[in-house]
Protein backbone atom coordinates (compact mmCIF):
# COMPACT_ATOMS: atom_id res chain seq x y z
CA UNK A 1 0.00 0.00 0.00
CA UNK A 2 1.42 3.41 -0.97
CA UNK A 3 1.32 6.34 1.45
CA UNK A 4 -1.50 7.87 -0.60
CA UNK A 5 -3.49 4.66 -0.37
CA UNK A 6 -3.02 4.68 3.42
CA UNK A 7 -4.24 8.27 3.62
CA UNK A 8 -7.18 7.53 1.32
CA UNK A 9 -8.08 4.42 3.31
CA UNK A 10 -8.07 6.48 6.53
CA UNK A 11 -10.21 9.12 4.87
CA UNK A 12 -12.77 6.55 3.71
CA UNK A 13 -12.90 4.97 7.15
CA UNK A 14 -13.53 8.33 8.81
CA UNK A 15 -16.21 9.24 6.26
CA UNK A 16 -18.03 5.97 6.80
CA UNK A 17 -18.02 6.44 10.59
CA UNK A 18 -19.19 10.03 10.40
CA UNK A 19 -21.80 9.29 7.74
CA UNK A 20 -23.18 6.37 9.71
CA UNK A 21 -23.29 8.52 12.87
CA UNK A 22 -25.30 11.16 11.05
CA UNK A 23 -27.68 8.54 9.66
CA UNK A 24 -28.11 7.06 13.17
CA UNK A 25 -28.93 10.51 14.53
CA UNK A 26 -31.40 11.30 11.77
CA UNK A 27 -35.03 10.42 11.20
CA UNK A 28 -34.79 11.57 7.59
CA UNK A 29 -31.69 9.83 6.29
CA UNK A 30 -30.66 6.25 5.68
CA UNK A 31 -27.15 5.53 4.45
CA UNK A 32 -26.17 2.33 2.67
CA UNK A 33 -22.44 1.73 2.15
CA UNK A 34 -21.79 -0.48 -0.88
CA UNK A 35 -18.92 -2.90 -1.42
CA UNK A 36 -16.13 -3.72 0.96
CA UNK A 37 -15.45 -1.59 4.00
CA UNK A 38 -14.42 1.21 4.13
CA UNK A 39 -16.88 2.02 1.37
CA UNK A 40 -16.10 4.13 -1.66
CA UNK A 41 -19.73 4.04 -2.78
CA UNK A 42 -22.93 4.92 -0.93
CA UNK A 43 -26.63 5.19 -1.50
CA UNK A 44 -28.27 7.86 0.63
CA UNK A 45 -32.04 7.65 1.04
CA UNK A 46 -33.89 10.73 2.30
CA UNK A 47 -37.39 10.61 3.71
CA UNK A 48 -37.74 14.38 4.06
CA UNK A 49 -40.35 16.19 2.00
CA UNK A 50 -39.45 17.62 -1.39
CA UNK A 51 -41.25 18.24 -4.68
CA UNK A 52 -42.00 16.14 -7.71
CA UNK A 53 -43.97 16.94 -10.86
CA UNK A 54 -46.38 14.35 -12.13
CA UNK A 55 -46.79 13.48 -15.78
CA UNK A 56 -49.95 15.64 -15.75
CA UNK A 57 -47.77 18.60 -14.74
CA UNK A 58 -49.01 18.82 -11.18
CA UNK A 59 -46.44 19.76 -8.51
CA UNK A 60 -46.74 17.50 -5.48
CA UNK A 61 -44.87 16.72 -2.31
CA UNK A 62 -42.94 13.44 -2.04
CA UNK A 63 -40.89 11.96 0.77
CA UNK A 64 -38.48 9.49 -0.78
CA UNK A 65 -35.36 10.61 -2.61
CA UNK A 66 -32.13 8.81 -3.36
CA UNK A 67 -28.64 9.84 -4.37
CA UNK A 68 -25.52 7.84 -5.07
CA UNK A 69 -22.14 9.04 -3.81
CA UNK A 70 -18.88 7.76 -5.21
CA UNK A 71 -15.42 8.65 -3.89
CA UNK A 72 -13.08 7.54 -6.63
CA UNK A 73 -9.42 6.92 -5.90
CA UNK A 74 -8.55 10.47 -6.94
CA UNK A 75 -11.06 12.11 -4.63
CA UNK A 76 -8.47 13.62 -2.27
CA UNK A 77 -6.76 15.29 -5.21
CA UNK A 78 -9.58 16.00 -7.62
CA UNK A 79 -13.34 16.16 -7.22
CA UNK A 80 -14.97 15.10 -10.45
CA UNK A 81 -18.64 15.76 -11.30
CA UNK A 82 -19.36 12.04 -10.98
CA UNK A 83 -19.11 12.20 -7.15
CA UNK A 84 -22.86 12.63 -6.96
CA UNK A 85 -25.54 10.79 -8.94
CA UNK A 86 -29.23 11.50 -8.68
CA UNK A 87 -30.91 8.12 -8.41
CA UNK A 88 -34.53 9.11 -8.07
CA UNK A 89 -37.32 9.80 -8.34
CA UNK A 90 -36.94 10.87 -11.95
CA UNK A 91 -39.96 13.22 -11.63
CA UNK A 92 -38.14 15.33 -9.02
CA UNK A 93 -38.94 19.01 -9.38
CA UNK A 94 -36.04 21.23 -8.33
CA UNK A 95 -33.93 23.85 -10.10
CA UNK A 96 -30.69 22.09 -9.06
CA UNK A 97 -31.74 18.58 -10.08
CA UNK A 98 -32.20 17.47 -13.64
CA UNK A 99 -35.43 15.67 -14.48
CA UNK A 100 -33.81 14.28 -17.62
CA UNK A 101 -30.39 13.03 -16.52
CA UNK A 102 -29.10 11.57 -13.24
CA UNK A 103 -27.40 14.85 -12.38
CA UNK A 104 -27.74 17.19 -9.38
CA UNK A 105 -25.79 20.36 -8.61
CA UNK A 106 -25.13 21.05 -4.94
CA UNK A 107 -22.43 23.69 -5.55
CA UNK A 108 -18.70 23.26 -5.62
CA UNK A 109 -17.47 19.89 -4.44
CA UNK A 110 -13.85 20.32 -3.46
CA UNK A 111 -11.36 17.49 -3.27
CA UNK A 112 -11.79 15.60 0.03
CA UNK A 113 -15.16 17.25 0.69
CA UNK A 114 -16.51 15.23 3.66
CA UNK A 115 -19.39 12.80 3.18
CA UNK A 116 -21.43 14.46 5.94
CA UNK A 117 -21.14 17.81 4.18
CA UNK A 118 -22.38 16.26 0.93
CA UNK A 119 -25.29 14.60 2.75
CA UNK A 120 -26.31 17.89 4.34
CA UNK A 121 -26.07 19.77 1.07
CA UNK A 122 -28.24 17.24 -0.74
CA UNK A 123 -30.83 17.51 2.04
CA UNK A 124 -30.74 21.32 1.78
CA UNK A 125 -31.40 21.03 -1.93
CA UNK A 126 -34.22 18.48 -1.67
CA UNK A 127 -36.06 20.53 0.96
CA UNK A 128 -35.56 23.76 -1.02
CA UNK A 129 -33.34 25.35 1.63
CA UNK A 130 -30.93 25.82 -1.25
CA UNK A 131 -31.91 26.47 -4.82
CA UNK A 132 -30.64 28.45 -7.74
CA UNK A 133 -32.97 31.14 -9.02
CA UNK A 134 -30.85 31.79 -12.08
CA UNK A 135 -32.33 29.99 -15.06
CA UNK A 136 -28.98 29.87 -16.88
CA UNK A 137 -27.47 27.80 -14.07
CA UNK A 138 -30.54 25.71 -13.39
CA UNK A 139 -30.78 22.06 -14.36
CA UNK A 140 -34.56 22.45 -14.48
CA UNK A 141 -35.64 25.86 -15.72
CA UNK A 142 -39.36 25.30 -15.03
CA UNK A 143 -38.61 24.46 -11.40
CA UNK A 144 -36.44 27.55 -11.23
CA UNK A 145 -39.35 29.75 -12.27
CA UNK A 146 -41.59 27.92 -9.79
CA UNK A 147 -39.05 28.52 -7.00
CA UNK A 148 -39.03 32.25 -7.71
CA UNK A 149 -42.83 32.46 -7.63
CA UNK A 150 -43.34 30.35 -4.50
CA UNK A 151 -40.53 31.53 -2.25
CA UNK A 152 -42.83 31.69 0.80
CA UNK A 153 -43.45 27.94 0.56
CA UNK A 154 -39.85 27.01 1.34
CA UNK A 155 -38.36 25.10 3.00
CA UNK A 156 -40.75 22.34 2.05
CA UNK A 157 -39.76 20.37 5.12
CA UNK A 158 -38.79 22.38 8.23
CA UNK A 159 -37.50 19.37 10.18
CA UNK A 160 -33.75 19.29 10.82
CA UNK A 161 -31.71 16.49 9.27
CA UNK A 162 -30.15 15.59 12.59
CA UNK A 163 -32.58 14.73 15.36
CA UNK A 164 -32.39 17.41 18.00
CA UNK A 165 -32.01 16.36 21.59
CA UNK A 166 -33.78 18.53 24.14
CA UNK A 167 -33.35 18.04 27.84
CA UNK A 168 -36.57 18.93 29.70
CA UNK A 169 -36.38 19.44 33.38
CA UNK A 170 -39.63 18.18 34.90
CA UNK A 171 -40.80 18.16 38.48
CA UNK A 172 -43.51 15.89 39.76
CA UNK A 173 -45.95 17.73 41.94
CA UNK A 174 -49.03 16.58 43.90
CA UNK A 175 -50.85 19.81 43.02
CA UNK A 176 -51.05 21.11 46.58
CA UNK A 177 -48.13 23.48 46.38
CA UNK A 178 -48.51 26.76 44.56
CA UNK A 179 -46.15 27.27 41.69
Amino acid sequence: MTRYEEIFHGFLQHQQEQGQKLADDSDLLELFPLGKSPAQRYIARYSCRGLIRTTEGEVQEADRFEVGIYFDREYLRRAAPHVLTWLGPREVFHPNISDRAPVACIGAIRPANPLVDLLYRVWEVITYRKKTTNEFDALNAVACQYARNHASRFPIDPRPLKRQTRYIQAQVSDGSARP
Partner: protein
Amino acid sequence: MTLPPEVLRRTVTVLGSGGNVGSHAVKHLARLQEVERLVLVDPDTYSQKNLRVQDIEARDVGRKKVEVQKRQVRRINPSMEVVALCAPVEQVPPAMLRSAVILACMDSRQARLSANRITLGLRIPWIDSGVEGTGGLARISLYFPGLERPCGICAWDERHFATMEQRYPCSDGEETTAPTGAPSSLGGLAASLQVLHAQRYLAGELGPEDFGREMVLDTLYRRLSAPAFRRNPDCLAEHEAWDAQLLQQTPEELTLGDALQLAPGNGRRSLWVDASPFIGELACRHCGTSRRLLRHEASLLPRHDRCPSCRRRMLPVGSATWDRLEDGEFPRRILRRRLSRLGLRPGDVFAVAASGGTRRYELS
Protein backbone atom coordinates in the same frame (compact mmCIF):
# COMPACT_ATOMS: atom_id res chain seq x y z
CA MET B 1 7.26 4.66 -27.70
CA THR B 2 10.73 3.14 -27.55
CA LEU B 3 13.31 5.73 -28.39
CA PRO B 4 17.03 5.10 -28.38
CA PRO B 5 18.57 6.37 -25.09
CA GLU B 6 20.79 8.84 -26.97
CA VAL B 7 17.70 10.47 -28.50
CA LEU B 8 15.85 10.41 -25.18
CA ARG B 9 18.76 12.20 -23.53
CA ARG B 10 18.36 15.02 -26.06
CA THR B 11 14.57 15.22 -25.91
CA VAL B 12 12.74 17.99 -24.07
CA THR B 13 8.99 18.12 -23.49
CA VAL B 14 7.18 21.44 -23.13
CA LEU B 15 3.75 21.32 -21.50
CA GLY B 16 1.66 24.37 -22.30
CA SER B 17 3.99 25.17 -25.16
CA GLY B 18 1.81 27.83 -26.73
CA GLY B 19 1.21 30.10 -23.75
CA ASN B 20 2.67 33.19 -22.14
CA VAL B 21 5.82 31.35 -20.99
CA GLY B 22 5.79 28.37 -23.34
CA SER B 23 5.74 30.35 -26.58
CA HIS B 24 9.05 31.97 -25.54
CA ALA B 25 10.59 28.79 -24.12
CA VAL B 26 10.07 26.82 -27.33
CA LYS B 27 12.11 29.30 -29.39
CA HIS B 28 14.98 29.27 -26.92
CA LEU B 29 14.97 25.46 -26.92
CA ALA B 30 15.03 25.38 -30.72
CA ARG B 31 18.41 27.14 -30.55
CA LEU B 32 20.02 24.77 -28.03
CA GLN B 33 22.61 22.37 -29.36
CA GLU B 34 21.85 20.00 -26.44
CA VAL B 35 18.34 19.42 -27.83
CA GLU B 36 17.50 17.41 -30.94
CA ARG B 37 13.89 16.45 -30.30
CA LEU B 38 11.01 18.49 -28.87
CA VAL B 39 7.62 17.25 -27.69
CA LEU B 40 5.10 20.11 -27.58
CA VAL B 41 1.82 19.75 -25.72
CA ASP B 42 -0.99 22.30 -25.70
CA PRO B 43 -4.73 21.82 -26.18
CA ASP B 44 -5.62 25.34 -27.34
CA THR B 45 -5.80 27.47 -30.45
CA TYR B 46 -4.58 31.07 -30.60
CA SER B 47 -7.10 33.86 -30.21
CA GLN B 48 -6.93 37.62 -30.69
CA LYS B 49 -6.23 38.28 -27.00
CA ASN B 50 -3.10 36.08 -27.13
CA LEU B 51 -1.43 38.54 -29.52
CA ARG B 52 -0.64 40.99 -26.73
CA VAL B 53 0.83 38.54 -24.23
CA GLN B 54 2.39 35.72 -26.25
CA ASP B 55 5.21 35.46 -28.74
CA ILE B 56 3.10 35.02 -31.89
CA GLU B 57 2.07 36.88 -35.03
CA ALA B 58 -1.37 38.10 -36.19
CA ARG B 59 -1.62 35.35 -38.84
CA ASP B 60 -1.39 32.70 -36.10
CA VAL B 61 -4.81 33.60 -34.69
CA GLY B 62 -7.22 30.68 -35.12
CA ARG B 63 -4.44 28.10 -35.47
CA LYS B 64 -3.53 25.32 -33.08
CA LYS B 65 -0.86 26.51 -30.69
CA VAL B 66 1.33 23.43 -31.05
CA GLU B 67 1.22 23.65 -34.85
CA VAL B 68 2.27 27.32 -34.79
CA GLN B 69 5.14 26.52 -32.41
CA LYS B 70 6.20 23.54 -34.47
CA ARG B 71 6.40 25.72 -37.57
CA GLN B 72 8.47 28.32 -35.72
CA VAL B 73 10.91 25.69 -34.43
CA ARG B 74 11.32 24.34 -37.97
CA ARG B 75 12.10 27.84 -39.18
CA ILE B 76 14.81 28.29 -36.53
CA ASN B 77 16.22 24.76 -36.65
CA PRO B 78 15.03 22.63 -39.59
CA SER B 79 16.89 19.54 -38.33
CA MET B 80 15.03 19.41 -35.04
CA GLU B 81 12.40 16.69 -34.71
CA VAL B 82 9.17 18.12 -33.32
CA VAL B 83 6.22 16.10 -32.01
CA ALA B 84 3.12 18.30 -31.66
CA LEU B 85 0.34 16.99 -29.41
CA CYS B 86 -2.80 19.10 -29.37
CA ALA B 87 -4.36 17.81 -26.14
CA PRO B 88 -4.43 18.59 -22.44
CA VAL B 89 -1.56 16.92 -20.58
CA GLU B 90 -4.06 14.77 -18.63
CA GLN B 91 -5.14 13.18 -21.91
CA VAL B 92 -1.75 12.43 -23.41
CA PRO B 93 -0.50 8.84 -23.00
CA PRO B 94 2.25 9.30 -20.40
CA ALA B 95 5.02 7.47 -22.24
CA MET B 96 4.73 9.97 -25.10
CA LEU B 97 6.15 12.57 -22.72
CA ARG B 98 9.26 10.57 -21.98
CA SER B 99 12.26 12.90 -22.26
CA ALA B 100 15.40 14.07 -20.47
CA VAL B 101 13.57 16.95 -18.82
CA ILE B 102 10.06 18.42 -18.89
CA LEU B 103 9.33 22.13 -18.88
CA ALA B 104 5.87 22.97 -17.55
CA CYS B 105 4.47 26.31 -18.68
CA MET B 106 0.84 25.82 -17.64
CA ASP B 107 -1.68 27.98 -15.88
CA SER B 108 -3.90 25.27 -14.43
CA ARG B 109 -3.47 23.41 -11.15
CA GLN B 110 -5.12 20.36 -12.65
CA ALA B 111 -2.49 20.24 -15.39
CA ARG B 112 0.33 20.71 -12.83
CA LEU B 113 -1.05 17.85 -10.79
CA SER B 114 -0.97 15.62 -13.88
CA ALA B 115 2.54 16.75 -14.83
CA ASN B 116 3.70 15.95 -11.30
CA ARG B 117 2.13 12.49 -11.42
CA ILE B 118 3.69 11.64 -14.78
CA THR B 119 7.17 12.94 -13.90
CA LEU B 120 7.18 10.95 -10.64
CA GLY B 121 5.91 7.82 -12.36
CA LEU B 122 8.35 8.00 -15.27
CA ARG B 123 11.19 9.47 -13.16
CA ILE B 124 11.72 12.59 -15.26
CA PRO B 125 13.04 15.81 -13.71
CA TRP B 126 10.86 18.81 -14.44
CA ILE B 127 11.00 22.57 -14.25
CA ASP B 128 7.76 24.34 -13.55
CA SER B 129 7.23 28.03 -14.26
CA GLY B 130 4.71 30.65 -13.35
CA VAL B 131 4.11 34.37 -13.69
CA GLU B 132 2.00 36.83 -11.75
CA GLY B 133 1.18 39.88 -13.80
CA THR B 134 0.18 42.48 -11.19
CA GLY B 135 3.00 41.60 -8.79
CA GLY B 136 5.58 41.40 -11.60
CA LEU B 137 6.69 37.98 -10.37
CA ALA B 138 8.41 35.32 -12.46
CA ARG B 139 9.03 31.93 -10.91
CA ILE B 140 10.66 28.63 -11.76
CA SER B 141 10.58 25.52 -9.55
CA LEU B 142 12.88 22.55 -10.08
CA TYR B 143 11.84 19.04 -9.09
CA PHE B 144 13.77 15.83 -9.29
CA PRO B 145 11.69 12.66 -8.89
CA GLY B 146 12.34 10.27 -6.02
CA LEU B 147 10.73 8.69 -2.99
CA GLU B 148 12.48 11.01 -0.57
CA ARG B 149 12.57 14.10 -2.73
CA PRO B 150 10.07 16.97 -2.67
CA CYS B 151 7.62 16.93 -5.56
CA GLY B 152 5.51 19.61 -7.20
CA ILE B 153 2.66 19.22 -4.73
CA CYS B 154 4.56 18.47 -1.51
CA ALA B 155 3.94 22.09 -0.52
CA TRP B 156 0.24 22.02 -1.40
CA ASP B 157 -2.33 22.19 1.36
CA GLU B 158 -6.11 22.04 1.24
CA ARG B 159 -6.32 25.62 -0.10
CA HIS B 160 -4.39 24.60 -3.19
CA PHE B 161 -6.68 21.65 -3.80
CA ALA B 162 -9.74 23.78 -3.09
CA THR B 163 -8.83 26.19 -5.89
CA MET B 164 -8.41 23.42 -8.42
CA GLU B 165 -10.32 23.92 -11.67
CA GLN B 166 -13.54 21.97 -11.56
CA ARG B 167 -16.30 20.79 -13.83
CA TYR B 168 -19.76 21.65 -12.56
CA PRO B 169 -22.86 19.78 -13.68
CA CYS B 170 -24.70 23.12 -13.82
CA SER B 171 -22.23 24.96 -16.06
CA ASP B 172 -22.13 22.62 -19.02
CA GLY B 173 -19.33 20.68 -17.42
CA GLU B 174 -16.63 23.04 -18.63
CA GLU B 175 -13.54 23.80 -16.56
CA THR B 176 -12.36 27.34 -16.26
CA THR B 177 -8.89 28.78 -15.74
CA ALA B 178 -8.41 32.46 -15.01
CA PRO B 179 -5.93 34.23 -17.31
CA THR B 180 -2.64 35.19 -15.61
CA GLY B 181 -2.82 38.73 -17.02
CA ALA B 182 0.98 38.77 -17.31
CA PRO B 183 2.76 40.76 -20.03
CA SER B 184 4.72 38.93 -22.71
CA SER B 185 8.00 40.24 -21.27
CA LEU B 186 7.35 38.57 -17.90
CA GLY B 187 6.55 35.28 -19.63
CA GLY B 188 9.78 35.69 -21.59
CA LEU B 189 11.71 36.17 -18.35
CA ALA B 190 10.31 33.01 -16.77
CA ALA B 191 10.96 31.10 -20.01
CA SER B 192 14.58 32.26 -20.13
CA LEU B 193 15.21 31.14 -16.54
CA GLN B 194 13.55 27.82 -17.27
CA VAL B 195 15.53 27.13 -20.45
CA LEU B 196 18.83 28.25 -18.86
CA HIS B 197 18.35 25.65 -16.11
CA ALA B 198 17.25 22.98 -18.58
CA GLN B 199 20.34 23.63 -20.69
CA ARG B 200 22.64 23.35 -17.65
CA TYR B 201 20.96 20.11 -16.65
CA LEU B 202 21.29 18.64 -20.15
CA ALA B 203 24.94 19.68 -20.23
CA GLY B 204 25.53 17.85 -16.94
CA GLU B 205 26.21 21.05 -14.99
CA LEU B 206 23.21 20.54 -12.68
CA GLY B 207 22.64 17.40 -10.66
CA PRO B 208 19.74 16.09 -8.56
CA GLU B 209 21.01 18.09 -5.56
CA ASP B 210 20.40 21.33 -7.48
CA PHE B 211 16.71 20.50 -7.82
CA GLY B 212 14.06 20.71 -5.09
CA ARG B 213 14.20 24.48 -5.03
CA GLU B 214 12.49 27.51 -6.44
CA MET B 215 13.63 30.83 -7.85
CA VAL B 216 11.28 33.80 -7.62
CA LEU B 217 12.20 37.04 -9.30
CA ASP B 218 10.29 40.08 -8.08
CA THR B 219 10.66 42.60 -10.88
CA LEU B 220 8.65 45.26 -9.04
CA TYR B 221 10.90 45.49 -5.98
CA ARG B 222 13.99 44.01 -7.65
CA ARG B 223 14.33 41.07 -5.30
CA LEU B 224 15.32 37.48 -5.81
CA SER B 225 14.48 34.61 -3.49
CA ALA B 226 15.48 30.97 -3.88
CA PRO B 227 13.91 28.83 -1.15
CA ALA B 228 14.37 25.05 -0.98
CA PHE B 229 11.44 22.63 -0.82
CA ARG B 230 11.01 19.94 1.78
CA ARG B 231 9.54 16.49 1.31
CA ASN B 232 6.10 16.34 2.88
CA PRO B 233 5.59 12.86 4.40
CA ASP B 234 1.82 13.24 3.96
CA CYS B 235 2.04 14.48 0.39
CA LEU B 236 -0.93 13.41 -1.68
CA ALA B 237 1.20 12.53 -4.70
CA GLU B 238 2.46 9.01 -5.17
CA HIS B 239 6.24 9.34 -5.20
CA GLU B 240 6.81 5.74 -6.23
CA ALA B 241 8.13 5.27 -9.78
CA TRP B 242 5.98 3.12 -12.04
CA ASP B 243 8.83 0.99 -13.41
CA ALA B 244 6.46 -0.06 -16.17
CA GLN B 245 7.44 -3.02 -18.28
CA LEU B 246 7.17 -2.40 -22.02
CA LEU B 247 4.75 -4.78 -23.71
CA GLN B 248 5.34 -5.84 -27.29
CA GLN B 249 1.60 -5.84 -27.97
CA THR B 250 -0.43 -2.85 -29.02
CA PRO B 251 -3.80 -2.04 -27.41
CA GLU B 252 -5.38 -3.54 -30.55
CA GLU B 253 -3.73 -6.88 -29.90
CA LEU B 254 -4.45 -7.28 -26.20
CA THR B 255 -7.84 -8.00 -24.63
CA LEU B 256 -8.86 -7.06 -21.10
CA GLY B 257 -8.76 -10.75 -20.16
CA ASP B 258 -5.18 -11.04 -21.50
CA ALA B 259 -4.14 -7.95 -19.59
CA LEU B 260 -5.65 -9.23 -16.33
CA GLN B 261 -3.61 -12.42 -16.72
CA LEU B 262 -0.47 -10.28 -16.47
CA ALA B 263 -1.24 -9.60 -12.80
CA PRO B 264 1.17 -11.39 -10.46
CA GLY B 265 -0.21 -14.19 -8.32
CA ASN B 266 -3.73 -15.56 -8.13
CA GLY B 267 -7.08 -14.51 -6.74
CA ARG B 268 -9.15 -11.59 -7.84
CA ARG B 269 -7.49 -9.60 -10.60
CA SER B 270 -7.98 -5.95 -11.38
CA LEU B 271 -6.79 -3.43 -13.95
CA TRP B 272 -6.67 0.34 -13.76
CA VAL B 273 -5.18 3.44 -15.34
CA ASP B 274 -3.75 5.92 -12.85
CA ALA B 275 -5.87 9.04 -12.28
CA SER B 276 -8.37 8.01 -14.94
CA PRO B 277 -11.42 6.04 -13.83
CA PHE B 278 -13.42 3.94 -16.28
CA ILE B 279 -16.64 5.61 -17.37
CA GLY B 280 -19.59 3.36 -18.10
CA GLU B 281 -22.23 5.95 -18.90
CA LEU B 282 -22.42 9.57 -20.02
CA ALA B 283 -25.53 11.70 -19.65
CA CYS B 284 -26.59 15.01 -21.16
CA ARG B 285 -28.17 17.34 -18.63
CA HIS B 286 -29.83 19.38 -21.39
CA CYS B 287 -31.75 16.80 -23.36
CA GLY B 288 -31.45 13.71 -21.17
CA THR B 289 -29.68 11.61 -23.78
CA SER B 290 -27.46 8.99 -22.26
CA ARG B 291 -24.71 6.92 -23.82
CA ARG B 292 -23.32 3.64 -22.55
CA LEU B 293 -19.66 2.97 -23.15
CA LEU B 294 -16.67 1.69 -21.24
CA ARG B 295 -13.59 3.85 -21.61
CA HIS B 296 -11.08 5.34 -19.23
CA GLU B 297 -11.73 9.02 -18.65
CA ALA B 298 -8.50 10.46 -20.05
CA SER B 299 -9.26 8.89 -23.42
CA LEU B 300 -12.65 10.55 -23.85
CA LEU B 301 -12.61 12.72 -26.95
CA PRO B 302 -15.34 15.11 -28.13
CA ARG B 303 -16.72 12.33 -30.34
CA HIS B 304 -17.33 10.33 -27.17
CA ASP B 305 -18.62 12.97 -24.77
CA ARG B 306 -20.51 15.33 -27.13
CA CYS B 307 -24.22 14.68 -26.96
CA PRO B 308 -25.39 13.16 -30.27
CA SER B 309 -28.67 15.08 -30.01
CA CYS B 310 -27.73 18.59 -28.86
CA ARG B 311 -23.91 18.57 -29.30
CA ARG B 312 -23.29 19.74 -25.75
CA ARG B 313 -20.77 18.08 -23.46
CA MET B 314 -22.10 15.07 -21.58
CA LEU B 315 -21.17 14.22 -18.00
CA PRO B 316 -19.99 10.91 -16.54
CA VAL B 317 -22.55 9.17 -14.35
CA GLY B 318 -21.11 8.32 -10.94
CA SER B 319 -23.06 5.11 -10.42
CA ALA B 320 -21.48 3.77 -13.63
CA THR B 321 -17.90 4.84 -12.91
CA TRP B 322 -15.18 2.48 -11.65
CA ASP B 323 -11.63 3.01 -10.44
CA ARG B 324 -10.71 -0.50 -11.45
CA LEU B 325 -12.03 -3.20 -13.73
CA GLU B 326 -12.14 -6.40 -11.70
CA ASP B 327 -12.69 -9.87 -13.10
CA GLY B 328 -15.95 -11.31 -11.90
CA GLU B 329 -17.58 -7.86 -11.76
CA PHE B 330 -18.26 -7.59 -15.47
CA PRO B 331 -19.80 -9.98 -17.99
CA ARG B 332 -17.44 -12.28 -19.90
CA ARG B 333 -17.86 -10.35 -23.14
CA ILE B 334 -16.16 -7.35 -21.49
CA LEU B 335 -13.11 -9.54 -20.80
CA ARG B 336 -12.91 -10.24 -24.53
CA ARG B 337 -12.87 -6.53 -25.32
CA ARG B 338 -9.64 -5.15 -26.77
CA LEU B 339 -7.80 -2.58 -24.68
CA SER B 340 -8.13 -0.07 -27.51
CA ARG B 341 -11.91 -0.24 -27.10
CA LEU B 342 -11.45 0.63 -23.43
CA GLY B 343 -9.60 3.77 -24.48
CA LEU B 344 -6.04 2.56 -23.98
CA ARG B 345 -3.61 3.89 -26.57
CA PRO B 346 0.03 3.25 -27.43
CA GLY B 347 2.08 4.91 -24.72
CA ASP B 348 -0.54 4.42 -22.01
CA VAL B 349 0.56 2.84 -18.77
CA PHE B 350 -1.84 0.52 -16.98
CA ALA B 351 -1.59 -1.34 -13.68
CA VAL B 352 -2.76 -4.86 -12.86
CA ALA B 353 -3.00 -6.38 -9.41
CA ALA B 354 -3.70 -9.76 -7.84
CA SER B 355 -2.55 -11.63 -4.74
CA GLY B 356 1.11 -11.21 -5.76
CA GLY B 357 0.99 -7.41 -5.78
CA THR B 358 0.82 -4.71 -8.43
CA ARG B 359 2.63 -4.49 -11.74
CA ARG B 360 2.58 -1.80 -14.39
CA TYR B 361 2.85 -2.15 -18.15
CA GLU B 362 3.40 0.27 -20.98
CA LEU B 363 1.66 -0.36 -24.29
CA SER B 364 3.57 -0.27 -27.57
